[in-house]
């Protein structure tokens, strides 16, 4: 069942991050092939590949590209390298180990769509990725792969490396554009601000994830049809999944998309090798902190977008977090909610106020200082952020950060309510601290 790796195929080549190492292993062949094609045919190949975006939302890249309004220029490309969803670890690896592959992907996209400038936004905290990407860009400029008259053709585009400065919300594509315009990273209201029509400086802008773009060189070299043959019917190609938490061999694995099951990737010896210490599985998060939790009964589902969506969660950014039977569900829930409370940008009231309240309540419960009606209050707040706890959520906020904070609460309370009740019972048994005495 081992499939040839596409985007991680150079991870074992020591000098793959250098231009020499990249060229020696077939680098820039996709770009050269693209330059021999008519730009619109390059776009067609990506549509044929059915490449789903790898950043979280999973929208088909070729379709997203088609949303640029005709006749409106210039168009920009913004690369989303702000990877920060808890559990997610793949884009940093792609930038550190194979930066030229990403650059080649940016060039192919720019050529296909007539994008006249590219901004490669890399999360600020990733110093080594910044260095590797900068060095690769410098080499590629010198060698004529980026800039004016690329490879001697009339195709010209600059790629500008842009350092982020620490904010999870900037991974949301419109917040990313705000940040790139030198502002606080607060999401824009959509509509009208769908980036493909109204993006950077109000111009058509394609925002693609690092992993998405890293697939393009292979797709153009081998053809979209060859890519679509790999993986499931709708989830094509391969995909990187980070399996972390209580497993024997935590790691990042590139597997055929839509085919491999959770049971295989969590338990098989060639992947994460099962739960550490011979313990039992309690639950797992299938797609990053924002995703509702899965349990034993979901293990045989394939890592397929449609299947996981239908089962009430999401593959998100390819982050599988495994929790064993010793995990305190209340503490895990508090940890996840605290993240969203801390990262809320403050623009929308339900999220700004709600996530902070949720964190406070969960903190009270965890410290056995809970009030008897705290769980009702917690659910009431959740309902105000994500009415009816629907999946996918009904939005009361501009972006999905607020509803994401609701996922762990509904999951943990739905399955492990007894653990919360134990904390609350212990809270009531504890003597209250007097506000004044004596």
């Amino acid at each position, binding site marked *: 069942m081992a499939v040839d790796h596409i985007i991680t195929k150079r991870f074992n080549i020591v000098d793959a991050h250098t231009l020499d190492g990249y060229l020696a292993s077939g680098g820039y062949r996709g770009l050269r092939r693209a330059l021999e094609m008519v730009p619109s045919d390059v776009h067609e190949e990506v549509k044929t590949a059915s490449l789903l975006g790898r950043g979280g939302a999973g929208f088909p890249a070729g379709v997203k590209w088609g949303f640029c309004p005709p006749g409106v220029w210039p168009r920009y490309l913004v690369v989303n390298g702000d990877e*920060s969803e808890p559990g997610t670890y793949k884009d940093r690896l792609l930038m550190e180990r194979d930066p030229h592959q990403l650059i080649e992907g940016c060039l192919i996209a720019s050529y296909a769509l007539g994008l006249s400038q590219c901004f490669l936004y890399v999360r600020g905290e990733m110093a080594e990725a910044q260095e590797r990407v900068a060095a690769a860009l410098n080499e590629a400029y010198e060698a004529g792969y980026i*800039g*004016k008259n690329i490879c001697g053709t009339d195709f010209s585009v600059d790629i*500008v490396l842009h350092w982020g*400065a620490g904010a999870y919300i900037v991974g949301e594509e419109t917040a990313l554009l705000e940040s790139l*315009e*030198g502002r*606080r990273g607060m999401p824009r209201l959509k509509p009208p601000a769908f980036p493909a029509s109204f993006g950077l400086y109000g111009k058509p802008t394609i925002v693609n994830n690092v992993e998405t773009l890293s697939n393009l060189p292979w797709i153009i070299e081998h053809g979209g049809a060859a890519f679509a043959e790999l993986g499931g019917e709708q989830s094509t190609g391969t995909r990187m999944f980070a399996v*972390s938490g209580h497993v024997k061999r935590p790691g990042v694995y590139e597997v055929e998309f839509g085919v491999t099951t959770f049971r295989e990737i969590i338990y098989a010896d060639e992947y994460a090798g099962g739960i550490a210490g011979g313990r039992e599985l309690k639950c797992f998060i299938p797609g990053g902190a924002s995703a509702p939790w899965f349990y034993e009964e979901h293990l045989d589902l394939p890592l397929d977008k449609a299947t996981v969506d239908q089962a009430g969660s999401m593959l998100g950014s390819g982050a599988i977090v495994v929790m064993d039977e010793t995990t305190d569900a209340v503490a895990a829930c508090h940890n996840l909610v605290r*993240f969203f409370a801390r990262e809320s940008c403050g623009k929308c009231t339900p999220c700004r106020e709600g996530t902070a309240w949720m964190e406070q309540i969960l903190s009270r419960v965890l410290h056995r200082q809970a009030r008897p009606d705290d769980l009702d209050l917690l659910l009431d707040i959740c309902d105000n952020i994500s009415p009816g706890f629907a999946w996918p959520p009904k939005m009361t906020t501009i972006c999905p950060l607020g509803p994401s904070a609701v996922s762990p609460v509904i999951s943990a309370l739905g399955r492990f309510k007894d653990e919360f009740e134990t904390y609350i019972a212990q809270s009531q048994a504890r003597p209250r601290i007097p506000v004044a005495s004596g």
Partner: protein
Amino acid sequence: MSRFIDENLRLAREIIARYPKPRSAMIPLLHLAQEQNGYVPQDAMEEVAELVGVSSAEVLGTLSFYEMFKQIQPGRYQVNICHGISCFLCGAGELLSHAEEKLGIKSGGTTPDGMFSLEAVECIAACTEAPALQVNYRYSHRSTSEGFDELVDALAAGDRTDIPEHGILATVRQRIPSERAAGASSPDVSEVPVWLGEG
């Protein structure tokens, strides 16, 4: 006193020229100011404001949104311990307690000698390498208490020359040779890219 030295001022202007609008250079320029000073002092904010053509209040407004920008001098080494979900499951809490004990400060504090600042931070994208930490944004994977002590001792002894002092984010910087540059693409100039031809 904290205005850009000549070399950085030249670099700042080069960075601004890469963008279609100067304001887009604000975050890169704040990183440059932090690199020069270890933090972003008030007069550096004023200079960045002048360079990108906004008020210094707008610079403060942007800067204060982002975790990495410091308005007071942190320690020479900013130690960030991840307490995201994967690291939490793999012992980040114990690692943080140990770090607080070893450094004699609480999370959020700086040692009296100005060598170390300690902070518990959200996910740093090293989830399969938990528990993870960073010193000045350089990773340490699968950290243990013993490994932490060794790291701190080596930093204190000046033996970790691979980790630059706080503020220096990346030791390799992008350079766009002027003869190779395609140039910034202004949003105000509506031109069909030449390689698309007439279509």
